[in-house]
């Protein structure tokens, strides 16, 4: 067999092996989601979930709110410079709020969440696996999918929409700081343009739906990467990186799909 044929065969083999590994990983992730995510929570399970809401949600609050404030301020500043050219600066409130509610708040909060909470979840579960804590839990007769993975998965799913709402609120307030208090737009116009043009179902709820989807996907990727990693220091490092990369790509890709479904018929 010639070297060219051997190389070609090697590439095909490698491609096939990688494809099988990806399909197997998706299968394992699906099984994890079903086994961890489905079930009636016990009273103790609710306590564990509340504890994780603190670690995953409350401790992410600072980075999300500060980011929301600055993004709202930047939006107002950029929007004002464009709108003032058309004499439409009174539509600034509408522009800032729609940008935040529909796109920026769900997407940026999810990206920040993946970096802050997702990576921490992967590293925590991974370290528990590397130190045999998950195995010892199994041998005690406690399912780590129910006790460790499920509370973290549900905490991520619930806390990201709440963080997204916080992001939007602070961002809109940041836009008002710049637009009204600094650049001198009439405050009534800022709020009324928002009131008359923002639809609760079409804009606010669609943003919340997006953040629910992102919350599930980011948390799922984070807990799966932690649970499925190779239990070495290098394995933990790689899995943590994968969590951030895969989550970010998934959020951006899904955002396009969801936007097309939710707002695709506007234009």
């Amino acid at each position, binding site marked *: 067999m010639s070297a060219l044929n051997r190389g070609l065969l090697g590439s095909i083999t490698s491609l096939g092996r990688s494809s099988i590994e990806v399909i197997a990983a998706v299968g394992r992730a699906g099984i994890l989601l079903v086994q961890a995510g489905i079930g009636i929570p016990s009273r103790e399970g609710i306590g564990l979930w509340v504890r994780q809401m603190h670690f995953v949600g409350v401790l992410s609050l600072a980075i999300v709110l500060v980011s929301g404030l600055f993004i709202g301020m930047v939006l107002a500043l950029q929007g004002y410079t464009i709108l003032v050219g058309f004499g439409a600066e009174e539509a600034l409130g509408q522009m800032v709020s729609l940008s935040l509610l529909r796109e920026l708040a769900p997407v940026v909060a999810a990206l920040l969440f993946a970096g802050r909470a997702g990576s921490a979840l992967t590293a925590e579960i991974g370290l528990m696996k590397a130190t*045999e*804590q998950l*195995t010892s839990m*199994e*041998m*005690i*007769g406690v*399912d780590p999918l129910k006790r460790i993975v499920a509370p973290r998965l549900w905490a991520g799913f619930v806390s990201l929409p709440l963080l997204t709402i916080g992001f939007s609120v602070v961002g809109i307030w940041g836009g008002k700081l710049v637009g009204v208090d600094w650049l001198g737009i009439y405050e009534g116009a800022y709020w009324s343009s928002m009131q008359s043009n923002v639809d609760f179902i079409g804009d606010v709820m669609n943003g919340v739906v997006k953040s629910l989807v992102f919350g599930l996907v980011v948390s799922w990727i984070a807990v799966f990467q932690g649970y499925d990693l190779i239990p070495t220091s290098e394995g933990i490092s790689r899995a943590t990186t994968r969590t951030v990369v895969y989550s970010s790509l998934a959020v951006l890709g899904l955002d396009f799909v969801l936007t097309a479904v939710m707002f695709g018929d506007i234009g």
Partner: protein
Amino acid sequence: MTELPGQTATPTDANGQDAGDQDASSSSLGTESGIDLDDALIRVEGLRFTRGEREIFSGIELKVPRGKITAIMGPSGTGKTTLLKLIGGQLTPSAGRVEIAGQHVHGLSRRELFRMRRRMGMLFQSGALFSDLSVFENVAFPLRVHTDLPDAMIRDIVLIKLESVGLRGARELMPAELSGGMTRRVALARAIALDPDLIMYDEPFAGQDPISMGVLVNLIRRLNDALDMTALVVSHDIKETLTIADYVYVIADGKVMAQGTPAELNADADPRVAQFIHGKPDGPVPFHYPAPDFEGDILDGRESSAESSGRRQSS
């Protein structure tokens, strides 16, 4: 302490001499001198397990007698810990059957498997304590999740268990504040918290200083006698393991190489068993991992590096 079969001739006497030499008249391997293998809590039949392309086990057969300490020994890398994981249902064999108290471990649903494990305890090599819980809470963990006992009773049980391993005074410490020996003793207290029928020890003596090792050896023996548990010890610490074991399996090359009471194994004439039991560096078990001829390997390496440096110079 009750004198158990197989302990009448301990592996070393007070002078450190091989007890096997004194007990050369003991019965042949695999006999059941005082050990009733028919009354087995664990039965492993035709167990095969493959990792990648490497066959770890190629038909393991063993029985773990009820109420006794059974040791599984063998050189490093023979899959002793893997065997424990197969018995505990954490790994699935490619063929064969593992039965614990008549239940086919790998035929159970996930829920049934977890229910069965409540009657088992396992001591991990690393201790595997939950790092976010104190010593007290680590020992209380199985009681809190599997029983509805009031807090006062849980406290009493935890203190009894910690007292039995000598660490009642360390109950407020966190796992990071414990030495290796203390970690294993806490893990042992946690493993016996629910008074299991079966306890599995994974290399309990590895990396321990002589004092901790002595403490652990005594603890394992005493706990087994006091609680009437069945114990399965996986270890390659021959001296300590033979001191406490009632029955021993030696595994190598994916199969049971020998079995019997410590006295029987000490007297075994099989050169592979003798090499392992007496810790001889030279014998039928090779020191080297399989590799091509050493001289050829060195010379081939020189030739190939000379070729590559020649190519670099010509380019």
